[in-house]
Each structure stands twice: as C-alpha cells, then as structure tokens.
C-alpha cells in the first residue's frame, strides 16, 4: 500500500507539472450512438421550413433542415450548404458555391436548382428576413443558377451582410417532395404528438453523434416533470442545464389605442417597471439593461436607471405569452397597477403573443436570425413605423464598415426604444434541463436548442 501511495503521489506530481492551463476535455466522448428524447411545448403539425415561430418549430427546423449559410456568434454568415462565396460588381453580386458533398435525405445531391427554388419560396414567405432580402435584391434578375454548383444573388446596391437572411430557418433548402438535408432524417410523425428523427450520415458537417432524437409534445407541465423524473424524457424546457441569454422580454404598447396613444402614458408604463428588481428576484441569469436586443447580438449602450412614471387612470387588456413566467407577468401587472392601470390579462400561445390584438402585449422574443440588423428589422415590424428607425435601419443596411454599421444600429435600437411602443423589460436566458450524462447541447442566440453535437454517455 505504501508503495502504491508513493507511486500515485509521484504520478500526480508529474501530472501537475504536465498540466496545461486549459479546461479539461473528455476522453470519453463525443460518443456515437444512443437516442435522446426531448420534450417541447407547442409541437408543430408540420416540418415545413416556412415561416413560423416557437421553440419547437425552430428545434425541428434545425434537426431536419439545413440552410445555405449559418450565423456565427458575431452575427456573421458562415458556410453551411454553401462552402463559400465571392462578391463581384462592387458588392452587388454574390456567387455562392455549393458543397459537392451536400445531399438531401433521399440521397440526391443538392444542386443550385433546388437552392434557387428554396430561395424563391423563402422570398414569398412571411419571414421578416425574407422581406429584407426581397427588398434588397435586384428586381429584374434577383437570382440565377448558372450551373449546378453555383447560385448567384444580385442586389440593387451593395449591402452589409447581404447573405445573413439566408440563415433564416425559413430559407432552408428542400428537395423533391420536401426532402430536407439537416443532420437528422424525420420518420413518420404522430402529428402534434411525437416524431422520431434518425441520424443522417450524409449531413454536410458529418453524421451527428446520436442515433436518433425523439421529439415529444409536453402538453402539461406536470406530465413533463413526471416523464423527466421517470427517465422517459431526457431534455425538457427550463431548468439549470444548457442555456443562453437569447430571449428579450418585451412589453409592447399599441399606440393607436388609449391610453397608449399618449407618449407620456407609454413613458409612465416604462418608468413603472423596476427592471433590476424583476431580474434579481424573478429572472435569475437575466440582464436588466433596458435594450431590445440581447447583449450577445447587440451589446447594450445604455445604463439602467429606474424612474417611476406619472400616475394613469385607465383599464387595458394585455395579451401575455404562456411562456412568460407567471410570477414575472404578475409582477408587471402589479407595477402597472401601481401607476393606475387596471390590467385584464389574457394568455396566448407564444407564437401569437407578439402580434396579438390587445392594447398591451407581454412576450418573450428571440430573433429569426441572430444578426443585429435583421433582428432590429424584425422587431421594428412589431410596432407602427417610425421614420427615424426606418432611416437608421436603411442606413445600416448600406453601411459596409461593420463598426460604423454597429453604431448606426445602436441609434436605430435607441430610436425604437425611445418611442416606448416596444419596452424592453429584460434579457432572459433560454434554458433547458438535461439528464446527467447528456453532453454537447447548446442554445443559440435565436433561442434554439441545437442537438447536432449532442451525445450521451453509455
């Protein structure tokens, strides 16, 4: 025993000297194999990559579909189905080269014909990113497929980050009969209940580690907890697992209805919210900076100050997304009551909360594309047009210097916020809880749970 201890001490001492100043990685994984069961709320009826909101829809879109480009953590386009691109005509023409390994789930190669068809479908969708792109593309010949391996986009004038809209889930490339080319291949679903997706060996970034992912509908919170506790579900929404600060909690006021048609009333509502206290008490991991975009997309340039508003005397109806934590919505209702607003709350589905018909709307919002310009463009569409905001966003889309563009986007965000039609409450973490031994899950800045690098221990 003594000898054994001294060996151990000796080896540990060697190892201590050898140790490098890095976080440890695992020898065990990543490991191929296994099935992951993920519970979602709002299970969509279809895997069609068309526009639409909701965590489940974006999760499934990321599993089953792939886009021409992705967006990195800095908001810059990165290769996906396209392996790269070049620009010509002083930045008005962008030529994307498709990966020669890109293939659909049915085994056919992805060609520029399918990419062009997907682009046309995308441009006709309700996606805010598609609207931006449609307005920016040349009206005569917006896009062509000169050969099977290339897609050419033509813009009416040089634009900043012109390919970023192609990272929208609605821009996914699909083949005949809707075949996708995402990391997982969907099998026959039980509509609105359950769907199994199996690993796709031909994915452009390689076969994912998991053999399959089962996405199941979590109709009731108690059921989800019971299933998680019983080991029937491996990943559930909410909790202390993988997380990212990727949702904005926004209170939208309808400026066409009293009392919010008066700027001072909107200012009073904004001033009634003690953001720091809400975050500290009710939104652990949140950020109280009064900015409309989360810090990862556009770092806030404003410091938080709490200025109580003037007294109001009115009754309003407020639509609240069911994914807003009840204690938070109750606290906000109480805050509004403190300045004289009687609030009648109605709950709505998360996908409908941002556009519900009500004098006030309280909702969690994540951008379709985690790029500051597109995100602000998407947010601006949720409020009545403001000339200053539109001018700033237009200027930002033409500004090719990314530092100057960022400054313009800050001005646009401030202008959008100053109207107090969209009032930022807090940046909120989107989080999940995962069973022990499950690794590689992440949540991106669009609030999407990403599973293509997920793996589980034996």
């Amino acid at each position, binding site marked *: 025993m003594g000898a054994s201890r001294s060996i151990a001490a000796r080896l540990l001492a*060697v190892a201590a000297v*050898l*140790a490098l*100043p890095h976080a440890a990685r*695992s*020898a065990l994984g990543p490991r191929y194999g296994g099935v992951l069961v993920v519970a979602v709320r709002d299970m969509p009826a279809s895997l069609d990559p068309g526009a639409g909101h909701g965590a489940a829809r974006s999760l499934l879109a990321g599993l089953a579909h792939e886009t021409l480009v992705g967006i990195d953590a800095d908001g810059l386009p990165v290769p996906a189905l396209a392996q790269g691109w070049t620009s010509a005509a002083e930045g008005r023409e962008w030529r994307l080269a498709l990966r020669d390994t890109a293939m659909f789930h049915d085994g056919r190669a992805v060609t520029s014909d399918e990419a062009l068809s997907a682009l046309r479908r995308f441009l006709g969708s309700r996606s805010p990113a598609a609207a931006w792109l449609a307005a920016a593309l040349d009206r005569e010949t917006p896009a062509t497929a000169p050969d099977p391996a290339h897609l050419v986009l033509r813009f009416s004038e040089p634009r900043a980050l012109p390919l970023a809209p192609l990272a929208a889930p609605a821009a996914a490339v699909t083949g005949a009969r809707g075949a996708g080319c995402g990391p997982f291949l969907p099998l026959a679903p039980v509509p609105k209940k359950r769907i199994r997706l199996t690993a796709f*060996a031909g994915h452009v970034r390689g076969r994912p580690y998991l053999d399959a992912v089962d996405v199941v509908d979590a109709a009731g919170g108690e059921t989800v907890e019971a299933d998680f506790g019983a080991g029937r579900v491996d990943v559930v929404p909410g909790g202390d697992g993988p997380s990212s600060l990727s949702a904005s909690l926004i209170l939208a006021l309808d400026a066409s209805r009293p009392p919010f048609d008066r700027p001072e009333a909107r200012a009073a509502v904004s001033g009634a919210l003690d953001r720091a206290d809400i975050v500290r008490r009710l939104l652990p991991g949140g950020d109280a900076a009064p900015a409309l975009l989360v810090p990862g997309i556009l770092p806030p340039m404003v410091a938080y100050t709490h200025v109580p508003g003037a007294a109001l005397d009115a009754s309003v109806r407020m639509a609240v997304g069911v994914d807003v934590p009840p204690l938070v919505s109750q606290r906000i209702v109480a805050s509004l009551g403190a300045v004289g607003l009687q609030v009648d709350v109605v709950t709505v589905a998360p996908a409908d909360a941002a556009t519900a018909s009500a004098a006030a709307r309280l909702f969690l919002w994540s951008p379709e594309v985690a790029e500051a310009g597109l995100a602000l463009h998407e947010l601006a569409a949720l409020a009545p047009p403001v000339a200053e905001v539109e001018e700033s966003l237009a200027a930002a889309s033409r500004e090719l210097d990314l530092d100057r563009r960022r400054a313009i986007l800050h001005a646009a965000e401030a202008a959008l916020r100053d109207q107090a039609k969209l009032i930022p409450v807090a940046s909120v973490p989107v989080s999940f809880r995962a069973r022990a031994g499950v690794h590689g899950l992440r949540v991106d800045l669009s609030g999407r749970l990403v599973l293509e690098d997920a793996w589980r221990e034996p």
Partner: protein
Amino acid sequence: MKGPAPPRRAAVLLAVLAFAPPAFAAPALVRLAEGFAGEVVRVARGRPVEVTVPEDRTGHGASLALDLHALVLERLKGRAEVRGSGPRLRVRSVLSETPAGLVLSARVVEEPGGALVDLVSVSAPADESVIALSPVPAPPGPAALDVRSTGQTPLLEEPVLDLAFFGDDRLVVLGPDAVALYKWGDGGLTLESRRPWPGHLDTVRFPGGLLRVAERDSAFWAITSRSPRALLFAVEEGRLVERQQADALPWPACPAGLRYRAGTNLIEGSVAGLGPGPFLALDDSVPGLAVNADGALAESAVNGLAVGPALASLWPGVVAAASPRPPGDDDAILVVALRGGSTDAPRVLESVRVDGAVRALASHARGESVRLVAAVEDAEGGTRLLAMDLARLQP
C-alpha cells in the same frame, strides 16, 4: 519523501536531457528574436531601452523565455542602448504559442511615467520538420513504477487519430487528412515524410483512425473513418510510399479485417474472442483485448473496466488506456493490469492526470523501459504529444 540515490539521480537527469533541446531550438526562436529586436529598434528611434525577460505562456518552461531574452539582447547590440535605469523605454513582453508557431507581444512604455508608447507583436512559424520535446523533470522518490522522463511537444498542426511506433526510432502519426512519419532523435521528432490521404475524404464529425505495423516493421496499415479503403505504407528512401489498398484493415484473428462504420469512429469486424464489435480501440499486441463501443475494456469477450477510446500495451498483462471521465473532469492515462486468465477483474494500477483528452496512445519497449506516447487534445482542440519513459522498478 526521500530523494533518489545518486546513480538514479544521474539516470533521471540523463533521461530528462534526452528530451532536452528546447521546443523551438534554433531557427524559430532566432527568427522571433531577430524580428522582435528589429521592432524594438524601430520603436525606440534612438532612445535607450530596457527589455525584460518575456513572460512565458507556452508551457515549455522558463528556459525558453530566457533563451529568447538572451537572443534579443544579442541582436540589440550596436542597434539600441540597453539600460535598466534612467529615462528609457521599458519593453514588457509575453511569449505565447499558437498552432502555427511562437508569438511575442509587448507593451512599450516610457519610464519614468509609464505612458504607453507602442504595442509590438512578432511571430515566427514553428519549424515544420521538427516537433521538439520540452523536458519535464520527473520528481524524485522511490516507486515500483518509475516515470524516468517526460516531455511534450508544441501544438501539432492537426488532430491525431492514432499513433504507432515504427521500428525503434520512428513514430507514425495518423491524422484526419494525412499520415506522417517522424524519426525520434535527440532534438525530438523530425518529420521524415508526410502523405496526404489519397482520394475523396468523407466529412466525419469526430473521425477515428487505426494503425497496424506489419511485415516485421517494414510497412504499416492505416485506415480512417473518412475513407473506405485501408492503405499499406512502406518507407522507401526515407519517404512514405503507398504499397497496397484493401477494403478493410488486416487484423490478427479477424479474417474479414476491420473497417469503420460510416460517419463514425466505431470499428467493425469480427475478432476472435471479441465478437463483431463495434469497437473504439484495439491493440494488435494484445490479442483478445479491445475497448468496446460503450467504453468498456473488453477482454476475451468479457466486458469490464470502463475506459476511454485509446489503448496501448506496456508490459505483459499491463496496458495503458485513456480514462472514461466525462467532460468537466480531468482526463487521465490509466495503467491497467489485465486479468491474465485469472478470475480477477482488470484493475487500475495508476492514473496519470493530463489536462486534455487522450485521443491516442502508442508504446514501444526500450530495453527495460517502455516509451509511452499520448496524443492529448486541449480545450481549444489543439493536440500535443506527451512522451513518457516508464520502467518497472524492482522491489
């Protein structure tokens, strides 16, 4: 803890010196010193300078920074006045390492006062043909297992899928895109030949690779999960040449050979005594032993100890294996005693902690000792080789 007896102390010192030349012995360090001295002269514009010893962040030890400091001072002679007091520019630098080479970055401030004058950064590519091993002295102390010397390389240019000794003084390094042959010398590992893997390579998220030295050390087989073909390489006039291709990697007691399951790092093939797999690692010097797909050390079809996906024989009945530790924990090289036909389960004799994931292991007997080489991947995905000379001490 007692120190070693003088003869052993000398042996340890000699063993350490076998790895002794600093990682960037001549050309890279000299280039870096020359470039840096030129920048200091440019910024100084005739003013006196004080150049402090660089802060070493390479992990290779203080000697590298001291050597570099001496080289810089040498190259400033006659070009700039160097002094440690009075009005001067103080140059405080940091030496770091990237996969491409060494980087020396410095703040130049005015003294007295400390006003920032300039920022300087100079880099020098690593010598492509030499992977030097930096020594790490083994601590003294009596033990049954003696770590006689240790050394580690700078970051390699690509990940390592498998390692194999090729004869007494050569090491085969299998990467995702190429196979390379290094010769072991006093200065470390010198690249003799590198062959890109021919043909189309599949995209694999976490590829696997397997080497098997064959034909009495005159050739070796290699396969990766990025290619469906196994290749036989030989060395002719110091260069790797491709001799043969096969649908599977020939393996002892495996008539149909081994191949990778498409898109994974899982090895398939029916090995006598082990079944059809899939496996994460095998070592042909220990027949009947493998790491199965669940990370269990499978010994003659009996699944036992949990380990990671790397394996190498040390002595009869003793192997080295990666640890099964999950992310967030330190990884380790496990020294495992096999069952050896007894009813005892395999057991871990020792565990050597390493900071990073052990991706591949190779071993070679050198007289009474064994040289064990591990490919260790750090948190940023860079890979270094860690070499240890191990010996069993007599009780």
